[in-house]
């Protein structure tokens, strides 16, 4: 069954053999609605992201016994995402959006860890996002008299200012919810951590990107960065609007980074890290400059690759050991060396360290902030980037380094090959994206044209232009590989001479000798010391959950209040009807 759906996943490529214009379908649904699919560079960028992600995840799923309905729903989900990114009008977009919502809901509900509360959280936030979207759509329709992107874009200029603002707010809220901007991220962590392990990678790598696609579509295509500049005015080299958005993004990324560091559950850490990384994208998406868009695009690509890699890696470990907490894992480096290397590559990318793609994309975003002269934003981004080293370290240390926390971990075998194949492919992709930034610029230049922004120069495949000079990814990676090989050689030389006969119990503290039960793994406690820093403590203690929980309580109370009216006394009902009549009569006659 896996192979069948693998082939099915390849099918859409037949229609997307080009980057632009290979697909142009329009299908009349009723007199008023037409479903139209049209391939734009922006759409195909996201379409390829989603296609490749689904393909790789399906390969990894070969290692599990999954039901037909699971695969069918997942295939439906992939089609829905294609419909979203290839839509030429809002009705198609919305249909794709809603099918994405419910098909993912049914997949998530198949997880064994799932409970009703988390499912409700997920679906209600998704629906709130969808309803905010549809409100925006129909308001736009009332002015453009069409659901078509082009028609709405053309009539946007002539709308009243308050309607424009309302549209921007409604659409942004909808897409922010999907991307998990702080305050609207209440569902993200619970859902990512409780969903089926391999499906979490889809949620984080692809589904959250649909929010990013929506933001690009609205800001870049429908409204247009130029129009945003006219509406809200400019600030330094960017726009006022972009500046506000940048603060939202930076706040998201800083808060989520700190929260990530303190998590004990592996997937929760990854979920917060996902929120933080999307925060970066939100931060630069509104700049309205070529570098801003390029940075956001680049990071979208890199984040998809990294999160797929990490989630698949963690899913493999969870499947192999049955444990999903840092406090229960540790010391797997000798048991699962390949997985360790893959995760290492992943976190190098995640932390934005050279020479991999993660560095190139972060560089592009910093570069965009320098270009617009938003210095404080740059500082915020750098701060959050530096803090993200901590959770990256926790990830690798907690799982692979230190001592195993339990006996059962010592007999762990290397994970199944089906998990490793996609990881290796993704690691290679990460290397390639780092080595050939010029190739990436070549890909996104048509998108910049689509947004009517100036294109970015590149020199061959290895070099891209930036505000602070050329960036030669190929040189960096070559230099790193050379240095890495040299160091490896050195270590190998030294190690072969070193003695390796130490036992983990060859230590004693305060005169006590640890027994087999004593945990010597301190990785999971890592991050709790953050609570001692006042500023960070204040951030960590705050949570949007109080707000949403009190909202739920209030709704429940209202419901109780209303249901007291329906207490089934027919005599009183009669009297109410008669009184209502009399009241209306007196009102009506006068």
């Amino acid at each position, binding site marked *: 069954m896996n192979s069948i759906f693998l082939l099915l996943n390849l099918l859409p490529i037949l229609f997307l053999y080009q980057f632009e214009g290979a697909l142009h379908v329009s299908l009349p649904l009723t007199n008023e609605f037409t479903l139209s699919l049209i391939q734009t560079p922006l759409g195909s960028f996201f379409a390829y992201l989603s296609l490749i992600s689904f393909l790789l995840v399906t390969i990894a799923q070969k290692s599990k016994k999954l039901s037909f309905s699971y695969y069918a729903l997942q295939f439906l989900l992939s089609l829905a995402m294609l419909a979203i990114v290839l839509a030429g009008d809002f009705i198609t977009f919305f249909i794709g959006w809603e099918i994405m919502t419910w098909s993912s809901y049914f997949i998530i509900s198949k997880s064994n860890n799932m409970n009703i509360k988390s499912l409700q959280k997920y679906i209600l936030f998704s629906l709130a996002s969808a309803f905010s979207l549809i409100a925006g759509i129909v308001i736009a329709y009332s002015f453009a008299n069409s659901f078509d992107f082009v028609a709405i874009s053309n009539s946007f200029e002539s709308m009243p200012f308050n309607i424009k603002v309302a549209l921007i707010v409604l659409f942004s809220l909808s897409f922010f919810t999907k991307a998990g901007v702080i305050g609207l991220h209440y569902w993200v962590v619970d859902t990512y951590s409780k969903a089926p392990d391999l499906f979490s990678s889809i949620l984080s790598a692809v589904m959250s990107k649909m929010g990013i696609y929506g933001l690009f579509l609205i800001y870049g295509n429908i409204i247009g960065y130029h129009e945003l500049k006219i509406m809200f005015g400019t600030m330094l080299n960017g726009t006022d609007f972009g500046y506000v958005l940048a603060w939202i993004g930076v706040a998201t990324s800083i808060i989520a980074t700190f929260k990530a560091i303190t998590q004990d559950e592996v997937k929760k850490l990854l979920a917060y890290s996902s929120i933080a990384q999307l925060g970066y994208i939100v931060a630069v998406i509104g700049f309205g400059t070529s570098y801003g868009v390029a940075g956001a695009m680049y990071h979208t690509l890199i984040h998809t690759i990294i999160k797929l890699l990490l989630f698949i890696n963690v899913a493999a470990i969870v499947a192999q050991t049955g444990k999903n907490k840092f406090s229960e894992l540790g010391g797997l480096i000798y048991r699962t060396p390949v997985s360790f290397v893959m995760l290492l590559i992943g976190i190098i990318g995640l932390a934005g360290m050279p020479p991999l793609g993660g560095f190139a994309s972060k560089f592009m975003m910093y570069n965009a902030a320098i270009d617009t002269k938003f210095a404080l934003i740059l500082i915020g981004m750098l701060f959050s980037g530096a803090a993200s080293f901590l959770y990256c370290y926790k990830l690798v240390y907690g799982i692979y380094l230190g001592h195993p926390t339990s006996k059962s971990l010592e007999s762990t075998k290397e994970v199944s090959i089906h998990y490793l194949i996609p990881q290796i492919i993704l690691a290679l992709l990460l290397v390639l994206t780092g080595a050939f930034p010029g190739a990436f610029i070549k890909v996104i230049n048509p998108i910049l044209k689509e947004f009517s922004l100036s294109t970015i120069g590149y020199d061959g495949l290895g070099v891209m232009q930036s505000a602070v000079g050329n960036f030669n990814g190929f040189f960096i990676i070559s230099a790193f590989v050379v240095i890495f090989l040299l160091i490896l050689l050195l270590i190998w030389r030294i190690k072969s001479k070193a003695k390796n006969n130490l036992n983990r119990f060859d230590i004693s503290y305060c005169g006590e000798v640890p027994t087999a039960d004593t945990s010597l793994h301190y990785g999971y406690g890592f991050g709790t010391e953050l609570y001692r820093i006042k500023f960070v403590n204040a951030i960590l203690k705050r949570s949007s959950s109080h707000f949403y929980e009190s909202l739920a309580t209030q709704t429940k109370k209202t419901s109780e209040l209303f249901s007291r009216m329906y*207490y*089934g*006394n*027919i*005599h*009183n009902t009669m009297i109410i009807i008669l009184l209502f009549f009399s009241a209306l009569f007196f009102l009506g006659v006068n």
Partner: protein
Amino acid sequence: MLEFFNSTQTIHTIIIIGSMCLFFIGFYGIATQKNLVKVLVSFDIMESALFLFFIGLHYQVGLVAPIVDSNLKTFTNMVDPVPQAMILTTIVIGLAVLALGLSFGIEYYKLTGRNDISKMNELRD
């Protein structure tokens, strides 16, 4: 002196006043009575008031009933037959509903021993 009562105006006034009294008696019954049978009877009184009101207002002095027999040779000197037909139908319907209601009431009383409509509250959450 009795000619005064023979005018259409007076008859209509009396009928309006009478049917209104009847109507409000029924209304009072609905508003205060909780016994199912009494409620049904109140409804019936209200309906009767309506019938009286409607039929009465269509009566005019000197006109005959719209029945084709020896008294009625031409179709000119009769009261409007439509209200009478309508009321006859409505009476039949009212009777059917009343019968159904009473049979429900009897069955319910057999089961529970109650006939107070305000205490019929087993249907609730």
